[in-house]
C-alpha cells in the first residue's frame, strides 16, 4: 500500500494507464464510450458502479474521486464520476452512469470512495438521483423538508417551501443506553464564532471527548450552479467565482472558470496575460492564507488583538495592491476569457514598487509569525499531534490543497497539471509529514513564501516586458456557443485545494450543466475522522486548520 509519502517522480512511468488498458480493464462492462474533452469516458450500467470503480482504483491506480456530477437530460439522468490519480492528476477517466427517468436509481460508490457519501447526498438533493446502498441518504444542502430537486428539469421555483426550526436530536442516541448515558449533545453553530461562517456541527460529547461529529452544511447554499447555468459564457459567469471562496481568493477561483471555459471553447491566452494572471492569483493566495492564519490564532487562543490584527494588516496591504490591479478589494472580476480585463495600472513603476515593498517586508513578517505562532509553546501544545489526518484517509475523502499537503500528499495542480505560467517559474511544492493541525499551519506559512517567490519572478518578467507586446486578451468571439454536448472537467489549485468545474455545453450561449467541485466541501467531510475521540478544543482547532469557507462548501 502506498503511504502517499514517496515523491511522485519515483513512481514514474508505472503509473501511466493508456486508453487501451482502460478499455481492457473495463471490458464489456462499458456499454459505450462518452469521451469528454479532458478524459476518456465510459458508460456503464447503474448496478456495476462499485465493480468498475473498485477495479479502476485498485488495478489502475485511480485513487482520487475528484468530482461527481449529476444531471438530468430530457430522457435520462446521469451521474459522472470524474476520477484522477493523486500521483498524476493529468490522468483522468470519466465513468458515466445513466439511469432512466422514471426510476433514477444507481449504485452508490461510497464503499469505494468515502467522499462519494457527501457527493451522492448532494446529487440526490439537487438533482434527484437515488443511490442504492448509500449509508445515509438524506439531503445535504437544502433543508430536510424541501420539496422537489431544484436542478431537475421540471422544478418549479415559485412553489412555497416550509423550513422548520427544531431542536436537533442526538444522532447517536439510539446507540446509548437510555437516560443513564452520560453523553451530551452539543450544537455548535450555525451562528458561532469558531465555525468560520454559517456552519452547524452536531457534536456528541462524552465528558470532554468528542464521541460523534456531524457537520451540517447548507446554510449558505446560494444556488451558485443555477446562477452560472443562467449566465452567458462570455461575461455573465465570471463574477460568480469570486463569491465561492470569498476570502480574497477571487482570482484563483476566476481562473478555474477561465480555464474550463477556455478549454471548452479552445481559446488561447497571450503569454503576457498569463504572467499577470499568475501574479494576481498568487497575491490572492497570500491574502487567503493570511486570513487562515489570523483566524486560526483566533480559534486556538482567542487572540483577537495580536496575530489576528497582524494578519489583517498584511491582508490590507495585499488587498490594496489587488485593488490597484483590478479595481476592487474583494470581488475582482478581473479575468476575461482569453486574458484579463486590463493592463497593469499606470504608472507601472509605482505599482511594481508597491509589490516589491510587500515582498521585501515579507520575510521579516513571516519570522514574526513564526515567533508569535509556530514557535509558541502554547500553540504547539494545542496543535502538534492533534487532528490527525492520515494520508490514506485524506485521499479517501478527496482532500486536496494545504490539508492534503499537510498530510504528506505531494499534490499540487500548479505543478502536476500545469496551467498559466507556473511551469516556467522556479518554486517548490510544500509538504509536511506531520498529518496534524500544526503541519497544516506550517504548510500555509511556507506557501506564502513560495507565492512571494512566484510573484517576484512575475514582477521581474513584467518589468522587462517589451511595450509593443503587451497583449492582454486574445481575440474572443462576442458570443461563445460551444458545440452541443461538449463536456469537460478542469481544475486549478485554488487557495484551499483542487477547485474544479464541469461544464456541459448545450449549443446555446449558456452552459447546460455547470458543476463546481469545491475543495472545502471535501476537506470538511474529513472533519469527523480528525476529531472523533479527541478533546473538544481539538475539534475547534482541527476545524480551524481545515480553513473552510462556507461560500465554497455550500456553493
Amino acid at each position, binding site marked *: 500500500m502506498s503511504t502517499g509519502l514517496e515523491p511522485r517522480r519515483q513512481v514514474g512511468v508505472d503509473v501511466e494507464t493508456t486508453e487501451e488498458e482502460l478499455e481492457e480493464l473495463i471490458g464489456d462492462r462499458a456499454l459505450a464510450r462518452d469521451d469528454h474533452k479532458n478524459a476518456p469516458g465510459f458508460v456503464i450500467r447503474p448496478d456495476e458502479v462499485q465493480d468498475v470503480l473498485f477495479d479502476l482504483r485498485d488495478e489502475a491506480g485511480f485513487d482520487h474521486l475528484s468530482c461527481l456530477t449529476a444531471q438530468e437530460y430530457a430522457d435520462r439522468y446521469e451521474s459522472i464520476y470524474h476520477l484522477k490519480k493523486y500521483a498524476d492528476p493529468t490522468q483522468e477517466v470519466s465513468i458515466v452512469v445513466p439511469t432512466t427517468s422514471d426510476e433514477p436509481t444507481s449504485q452508490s460508490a461510497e464503499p469505494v470512495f468515502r467522499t462519494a457519501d457527501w457527493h451522492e447526498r448532494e446529487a440526490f438533493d439537487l438533482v434527484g438521483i437515488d443511490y442504492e446502498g448509500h449509508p445515509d441518504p438524506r439531503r445535504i444542502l437544502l433543508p430536510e423538508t424541501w420539496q422537489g430537486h431544484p436542478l431537475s428539469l421540471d422544478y418549479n421555483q415559485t412553489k412555497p417551501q416550509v423550513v422548520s426550526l427544531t431542536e436537533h436530536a442526538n444522532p447517536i442516541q439510539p446507540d446509548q443506553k437510555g437516560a443513564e448515558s452520560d453523553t451530551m449533545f452539543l450544537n455548535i453553530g450555525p451562528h458561532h464564532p469558531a465555525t468560520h461562517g454559517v456552519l452547524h456541527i452536531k457534536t456528541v460529547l462524552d465528558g470532554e471527548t468528542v464521541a460523534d461529529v456531524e457537520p451540517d452544511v447548507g446554510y449558505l447554499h*446560494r444556488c451558485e450552479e443555477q446562477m452560472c447555468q443562467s449566465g452567458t459564457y462570455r461575461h455573465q459567469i465570471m463574477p460568480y467565482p469570486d463569491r465561492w471562496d470569498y476570502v480574497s481568493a477571487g482570482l484563483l477561483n476566476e481562473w478555474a472558470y477561465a480555464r474550463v471555459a477556455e478549454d471548452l471553447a479552445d481559446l488561447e491566452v497571450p503569454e503576457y496575460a498569463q504572467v499577470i494572471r499568475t501574479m494576481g492569483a498568487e497575491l490572492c493566495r497570500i491574502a487567503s492564507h493570511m486570513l487562515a492564519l489570523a483566524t486560526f490564532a483566533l480559534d486556538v487562543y482567542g487572540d483577537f488583538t495580536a496575530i489576528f490584527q497582524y494578519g489583517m494588516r498584511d491582508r490590507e496591504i495585499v488587498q490594496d495592491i489587488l485593488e490597484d490591479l483590478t479595481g476592487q478589494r474583494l470581488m475582482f472580476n478581473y479575468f476575461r476569457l482569453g486574458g484579463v480585463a486590463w493592463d497593469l495600472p499606470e504608472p507601472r513603476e509605482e505599482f511594481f514598487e508597491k509589490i516589491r515593498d510587500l515582498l521585501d517586508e515579507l520575510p521579516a513578517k513571516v519570522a514574526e509569525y513564526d515567533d508569535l505562532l509556530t514557535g509558541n509553546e502554547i500553540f504547539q501544545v494545542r496543535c502538534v499531534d492533534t487532528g490527525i489526518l492520515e494520508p490514506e484517509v485524506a485521499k479517501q475523502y478527496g482532500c486536496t490543497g494545504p490539508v492534503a499537503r499537510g498530510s504528506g500528499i505531494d499534490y499540487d495542480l500548479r505543478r502536476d497539471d500545469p496551467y498559466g505560467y507556473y511551469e516556467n517559474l522556479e518554486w517548490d511544492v510544500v509538504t509536511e509529514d506531520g498529518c496534524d493541525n500544526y503541519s497544516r499551519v506550517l504548510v500555509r506559512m511556507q506557501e506564502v513564501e513560495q507565492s512571494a517567490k512566484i510573484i517576484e519572478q512575475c514582477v521581474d518578467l513584467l518589468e522587462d516586458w517589451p511595450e509593443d507586446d503587451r497583449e492582454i486578451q486574445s481575440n474572443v468571439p462576442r458570443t461563445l456557443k460551444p458545440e452541443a454536448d461538449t463536456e469537460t472537467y478542469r481544475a486549478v489549485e485554488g487557495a484551499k485545494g483542487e477547485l474544479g468545474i464541469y461544464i456541459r455545453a448545450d449549443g446555446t450561449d449558456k452552459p447546460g450543466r455547470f458543476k463546481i467541485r469545491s475543495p472545502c466541501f471535501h476537506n470538511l467531510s474529513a472533519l469527523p475522522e480528525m476529531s472523533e475521540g479527541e478533546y473538544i478544543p481539538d475539534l475547534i482547532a482541527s476545524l480551524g486548520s481545515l480553513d473552510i469557507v462556507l461560500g465554497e462548501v455550500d456553493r
Partner: protein
Amino acid sequence: MSSDQNKPRQSIYDSTAPSTDTRDSRIGEGADDRFNSKLREAFGSTPFILTKFDKFMNWVRGSSMFMLQFGIACCSIEMMHTYAIKHDLDRFGAGVPRASPRQADVIIVPGTIVSKFGPRMKRVYDQMPEPKFVVGMGSCTISGGPFQEGYNVVKGAEEIVPVDIHVPGCPPRPEALVYGIAKLQERVANGESSPVVVKPYELEEFGDLPRDELVQKLADQIDEDDLVMRYNWSDSP
C-alpha cells in the same frame, strides 16, 4: 484693638471660597484633570445638566453600540476588515463585537440569507435585548443581490428582520460600512427608528399554517408545535 480688626478678614472679602467650596462639595473629590476636564469646564460651576431622560438615553445608546459578532457570507470579510486595524470601527464607539446575541445592540447582517438560515437568523435576532438595531450590509441584504434569482435565496434581510440602515455594495467597502454605522449612531442618538416596509416572514407553529397541499404533505415530518418559517417565493418582491 487695631482698626484692622474692624475690617472683614482678608480671607473673607478676597475669598473665592463661597463659589469653589460649593462646587467642590457638589462635585466631591472630582475627577482628575485627565478625565473629561474640558467638558467639566464647559458645564461651569455645576456638574448637573438638565435634559430629557429619553434624549440622554439615546445619546448614550448611540455612543456605545455593541455589535453582534455575526458572519454570513462574503460581506463578513469586509466587516472583519472594518473591525480590524486600519479602519478600526472602535474609534466611533461601535467596535466591540460580542459573541452572544444577549449582549448585543446591533446586528450587522453581512451576506446572503438562504432558506435554511432564515429561521436561525430570526432566532438570533429575537434573542437580542431591546432596543436593537439592524444594519444590512451588501446587496444581498437589500434584494438578494447577485443571487436574487436563486431558488434558495431570501430576497433581502427585510423579509425576515426589520432593517434600520442599508449599506449598498457588493461588498461595501469598509469605509461605507463605517459610514452606515455612523449614520445609525446618529439616528439612534436622535431617537429615530425605521418603519418596517415589508411584511417579514415569521416563525410560526406548524399547526397554525393554513392547511394547504404542502402543509398536508409535510404533516408526518413536522410536529404541530414545531416552529417553521414558510417561504412564499411567488410573493417575494
